[in-house]
């Protein structure tokens, strides 16, 4: 891949030996080993719920291991709190950023370790230090901008600077690319390279095999809490990694039978809508999706996809235009009406729109149907029917752990939460299914599962609109790809002969032959 390794094999900075972590009867980590060298990028690969987070929480002092040893720079350590780990140079960048929105970049970075002058915070020194760090590692940030005003990519850089500011020598990056655009991911890879060149070590937790092969020296695979093995990344390919992670061969290629698209289900015509700031973001948008086809909407985040889906599902009022489902007008209708008229959707943010985390899974599974029989009768919920429904879907959609019908949705892993949503939306059996980043943050096993159900909908002669920032996903699933840029469709290509470069060009705003 053309990357140069900065690993210094003579110096071991971190060693975890036979780490066991039990929660009650449940063993989250079962004799896990990890060795990280100076300047190394070490990937940790595992399915959702395999025990990666537990392992990292042990390493950064949040959990105490039940048994096992940790060595830092070949000396055994015992962490009593995250502070001990930070003091010794281990910094964690969490998947969900922990930043204070109304504070500036500098304020967030220095929080808790402010340089002082007398009794007050020495802002000038703080700002200078932040700038120094950001220049040293090529991380562009505006030290005076407020967090709420900056992009997700920049917020992540702030998180990284925060741990560097605390003197981290080893950085743990938890799913760092989950919410980034392809461009931002590239930027992150450069930052990782700069950091390792300077002698820092990186532990990268990710599901994305491509990123591992592109950035890492070694990869440790864990499955169901157990250490499987550590491999040199240059010795393996993505298929090998996937098989080791899941414990079986994974089918990356999506099998699709040929189908002739039928009548138009969704028709969007000259749609204009504003975003939350009141700025026009959909500027005369056209799109149609027919029966028996998956239409992929490709584009860089922020070009109007979010707003389009919100308008289609009734969560946002558009300014003007026409939206119909099988000829029925659903323009600016409420969520209930759009649903009744045949639109179901897998929302982009499963914790914001997809699930009520405090509700049990069985209650989440009847979100749109709780007022219908058999789930309720004359306003009284029928718990038996609700439970039966849930148990059926949990079985069919392989939601784990089994028997989780009455457990709060928030207790499930991300992948299983997504399965609950998919189970609900797919069984709605509506004419149109809109799926927005349906595999975000999922491991390959779960991705395979999601893709299977999207194709199944298409094969059942339903219309599917797939909105995704993962170009690979769009290309492997779509029968037709539409490219959105700046609130308009800038190009359309059949899914079969889509070319990544051409799509990338259109996503960046270049028009091809219409």
């Amino acid at each position, binding site marked *: 891949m053309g990357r140069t390794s900065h690993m210094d094999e003579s110096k071991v900075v971190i060693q975890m030996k036979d780490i066991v972590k039990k929660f009650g009867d449940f063993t989250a980590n079962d004799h896990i080993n990890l060795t990280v060298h100076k300047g190394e990028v070490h990937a940790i690969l595992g399915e959702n719920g395999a025990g990666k987070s537990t392992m990292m929480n042990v390493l950064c002092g949040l959990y105490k291991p039940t048994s096992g040893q940790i060595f830092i720079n070949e000396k055994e350590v015992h962490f009593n709190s995250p502070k001990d780990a930070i003091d010794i140079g281990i910094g964690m960048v969490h998947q969900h950023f922990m930043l204070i929105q109304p504070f500036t970049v500098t304020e967030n970075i220095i929080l808790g370790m402010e340089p002082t002058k007398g009794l007050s915070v020495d802002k000038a020194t703080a700002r200078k230090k932040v700038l120094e760090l950001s220049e040293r590692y090529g991380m562009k940030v505006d030290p005076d901008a407020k967090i709420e005003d900056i992009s997700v990519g920049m917020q992540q850089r702030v998180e990284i600077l925060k741990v560097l500011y605390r003197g981290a020598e080893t950085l743990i990056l938890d799913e760092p690319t989950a919410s980034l655009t392809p461009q931002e991911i590239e930027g992150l890879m450069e930052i990782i390279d700069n950091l390792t060149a300077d002698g820092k070590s990186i532990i990268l937790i990710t599901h994305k095999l491509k990123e591992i092969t592109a950035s890492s020296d070694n990869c440790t695979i864990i499955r169901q809490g157990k250490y499987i093995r550590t491999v040199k990344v240059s010795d393996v390919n993505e298929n090998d990694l996937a098989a080791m992670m899941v414990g079986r061969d994974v089918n990356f290629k999506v099998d699709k039978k040929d189908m002739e698209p039928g009548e138009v289900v969704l028709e969007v015509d000259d749609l204009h809508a504003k975003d939350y700031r009141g700025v026009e973001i959909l500027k005369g948008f056209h799109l149609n999706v027919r029966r028996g086809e998956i239409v992929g909407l490709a584009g860089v985040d922020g070009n109007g996809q979010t707003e389009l889906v919100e308008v289609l599902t009734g969560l946002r009022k558009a300014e003007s235009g026409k939206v119909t489902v099988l000829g029925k007008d659903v323009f600016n209708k409420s*969520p*209930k009406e759009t649903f009744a008229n045949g639109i179901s959707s897998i929302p982009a943010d499963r914790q914001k729109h997809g*699930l*009520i985390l405090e509700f049990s899974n069985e*209650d989440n599974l009847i*979100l749109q149907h709780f007022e219908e029989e058999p789930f309720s009768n004359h306003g009284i919920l029928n718990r038996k029917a609700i439970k039966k429904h849930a148990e059926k879907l949990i079985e069919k959609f392989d939601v784990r752990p089994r028997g989780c019908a009455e457990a709060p949705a928030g207790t499930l892993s991300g992948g299983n939460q997504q399965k609950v949503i998919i189970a609900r939306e797919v069984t709605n059996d509506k004419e149109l299914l809109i799926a927005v980043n349906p595999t975000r943050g999922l491991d390959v096993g779960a991705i395979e599962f999601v893709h299977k159900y999207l194709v199944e909908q298409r094969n059942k002669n339903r219309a599917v609109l797939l909105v995704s920032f993962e170009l690979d996903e769009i290309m492997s699933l779509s029968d037709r790809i539409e490219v959105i840029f700046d609130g308009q469709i800038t190009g359309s290509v059949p899914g079969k002969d889509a070319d990544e470069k051409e799509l990338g060009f259109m996503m960046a705003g270049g028009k091809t032959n219409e």
Partner: protein
Amino acid sequence: MNKKKSILESNVLYTIVAIIAGFLVGAIFLLIAGISPAVAYGKLFDSIFSKPKYLVWTLVYASPLIFTGLSVAFSFRTGVFNIGAEGQFVIGSLVACVLGIVLKLPPVLHALVCLVAAAAAGCIWSLIVGVLKVKRGIHEVLSFIMFNWIAFYLSNYVVNLPGIHRESSEATLDIAENARLLLPEGIRKALDCNAAHWGILFAVIAAVVIWVIIEKTTLGYKLKAVGFNRNCAQYGGINADGSVLTALGISGLLSGLGGAVQVLGMAGRLSQFAGQEGFGFEGITVALIGGSNPIGCIFSGIFYGAMKYGGSKLSIVKAPSEVVDIIMGCVVLLIAISHVFKVFVLNAAKKKEAK
């Protein structure tokens, strides 16, 4: 082992521990004030348990508190914060009182009309705040607090109107006998409690109804969904604004009923307030001690009622009745931090198990 674990995990245990700790803290303050806790607490328990009629009085004191407790608990469960129970309670008691004086209706019907009108008044009082929240985005806590004072002054104004006010007193005329919720005279005599009324029964029924709504109905599903995650509820087709209004309406209705029960039951008239009476605020305490569970509110309401009634007699042993407020304050505080406490206990239990 499992049985032990489930006891350690249940909230009831921590509530009881918090109550005991509250008494201990209260004892410290009594010692500081130079009063023997043994004497004061002895009097407190004596005044609650020593005679059956004291227990009846406890229930009389508890009835309005269960209502306001339910009102606040319902709002907690549906994601809003009804800190305006005080105002709704006042409005409810005012409407019940005025109609009890002005109307001339046969028994039962008169009381029923007063109750329904008071419930409606409390509901509307709360809904105004709800509309301000939904239409104008004004946070309900702000408007509720202001509405508490509006209700307070409105009540004092009405109490002094001619035709309502009793000459040369600080109170209204007496409410018509037909509007009162008192138990039949024979029973009251037998219980040796003149103010014994149906309120406690109504409160228990209300608690059960609210429990059914929250746990068993589509309405409860809807209200909780919006309370937990407004975005997801909307996405699922639930009318979020409508749900917020419904939740606040029901919550206000319960406080209004509480006010009516108090004035039609125990008081029989309304006095001019010198300061806020606090039934609504005490409802917050009741809801918190009851774990926001409607059935829990019955017990915490009775507990608070007992403390209020027993506390009113503390002056006999020269102990300040405020010690009751200190105890209740500590209990709420300790319950609020009991979650932390629980983690410690469970960890300790786990460690023991590991050995």
